[in-house]
């Protein structure tokens, strides 16, 4: 690999990472404006047009706040816990296929950090490490509320990891590959003579539903936000955190949310494909320019990703929160058996489909 290639690749990785990090300020604004809209109040509307600069103001405020390290905490763990939750959140986006490829100076660059053979398994594995930031943060804080929040969070995350994996396994079963890029390529085209786009959701509806519910729980969103219930636990595992250290937990949470949305887009909603328009047709419309195609594909991918993020916000301001025992019951008694049934039904249907 030449030096030029290496630097372009590094730049590409940074830009892809940055595009996911950018979800954070956007969501800071969207979440509050949407909350205002849903609750019939204006929301932040003073800073800039439509309050658009509110997110920037928030970030600046976070940086210029005092960053206290209380006396009673375990100093080392208290400091590294936010980084420990940011690193897995950054690493999971490695397997996300943003778009096909770009050609720069006669060299192809895939618009994906790395097309791993073990793509989806890698995402699940790194995703399961997200619990450590929360666990260590809660324990190091040496505060009852933090510890309770951390315990709740970890019990919840590990319980929902199994249905998440099994639901993803349904998609693997159908597509026959771990590579998310491969999955997206297989969703190009239409079904039943042009009636429906050939998307994963039409083959794995139950799998998608389970995956979606589980992704809410894995990212600690409402109705599964028990780790940070403000009425019971002050703020949960990050009660003692302030300034940017607190913001980093939030950053990791939103990045995980974006990665989950991207994963659902790639697995169930055709990734970068526009419905009813195949890649080849689009390429001919754009005059055969691969780079233009990649830009359109990026746009489509992010459109789908942000649609999912909007749905998350919508759910947050619509549903009430579960109780902890209900949460565990949903995971073990409903979602795990359902995802196993989903696997069996998919396997049997595939058997007859392939046996024709």
């Amino acid at each position, binding site marked *: 690999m030449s030096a030029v290639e290496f630097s372009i690749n590094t730049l590409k990785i940074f830009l892809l990472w940055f595009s996911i990090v950018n979800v954070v300020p956007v969501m800071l604004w969207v979440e509050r404006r949407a909350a205002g809209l849903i609750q019939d109040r204006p929301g932040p509307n003073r800073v800039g047009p439509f309050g658009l600069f509110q997110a920037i103001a928030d970030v600046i405020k976070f940086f210029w706040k005092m960053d206290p390290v209380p006396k009673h905490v375990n100093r080392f763990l208290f400091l590294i816990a936010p980084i420990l939750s940011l690193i897995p959140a950054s690493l999971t986006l490695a397997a996300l296929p943003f778009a096909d490829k770009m050609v720069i100076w006669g060299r192809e660059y895939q618009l994906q950090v790395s097309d791993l053979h073990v793509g989806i398994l890698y995402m699940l594995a790194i995703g399961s*490490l997200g619990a450590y930031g929360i666990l260590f943060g809660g324990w190091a804080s040496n505060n009852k509320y933090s510890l309770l929040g951390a315990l709740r969070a970890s019990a919840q995350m590990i319980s929902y990891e199994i249905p998440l994996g099994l639901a993803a396994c349904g998609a693997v079963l159908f597509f026959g590959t771990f590579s998310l890029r491969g999955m997206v390529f297989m969703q190009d085209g239409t079904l039943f003579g042009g009636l429906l786009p050939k998307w994963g959701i039409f083959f794995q509806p139950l799998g998608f539903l389970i995956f979606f519910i589980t992704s809410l729980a894995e990212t600690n969103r409402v109705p599964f936000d028990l780790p940070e219930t403000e009425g019971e636990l002050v703020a949960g595992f990050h009660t003692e955190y302030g300034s940017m250290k607190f913001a980093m937990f939030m950053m990791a949470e939103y990045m995980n949310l974006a990665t989950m949305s991207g994963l659902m887009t790639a697995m169930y909603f055709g990734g970068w494909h526009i419905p009813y328009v195949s890649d080849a047709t689009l390429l001919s419309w754009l005059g055969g320019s691969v780079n233009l195609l990649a830009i359109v594909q990026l746009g489509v991918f992010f459109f789908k990703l942000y649609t999912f993020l909007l749905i998350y916000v919508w759910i947050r301001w619509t549903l009430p929160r579960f109780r902890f025992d209900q949460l565990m019951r949903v995971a073990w008694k409903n979602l795990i058996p359902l995802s196993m049934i989903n696997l069996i039904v998919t396997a049997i249907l595939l058997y007859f489909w392939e046996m024709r």
Partner: protein
Amino acid sequence: MSKEWLICGAGIMTLASALMVVLSSNAIYSAIGLLISLFGLSALYLLWGSAFLSVIQVLIYAGAIVVLFVFVVMLLDMSRVVQTGKGPGWFTTLLVTGTGWIFSLFLLRALNRGNFAGAIEHKALGSISVLSKILFREYLWPFEVLSVFLLAVVISAYCLARPESLDNSGSDGVSIKGPKGGRS
């Protein structure tokens, strides 16, 4: 050539953090050492060409087993445990691990399995589909027996950590619903 260096680096990382597990007197630092050690092992698998094993290593060991350990550390009242001792100390640790290491080297030589280069070149480990075909054809029976075994483990795990017996004995146990027991 750089691959050998990476393997050496990952190996040193694994061993150094494993030493940290033994030597640290704080249980949570031991857990962190174990975590780093498992990542080193996972990197070693990756460098030996088995991406699948490497990812499974992270998923099961780093993502599940160490979470369990950290759970236990948090569940117990660690202030009592931390103060009990300072760990075995450098000299004892090095003596024990060194003896074990030399012994296992001799064992490997005696079994004539010291050919690590051959293990690295084993192609079946690299391809996941080849691996799963071997698993579900040649090792189908062990695989099915494993499910019975895991069922037995589920039952025995329940019997060992039966909630009724433990909850009653530990009267100072606190429910997760709130600091003062679950009224919410």
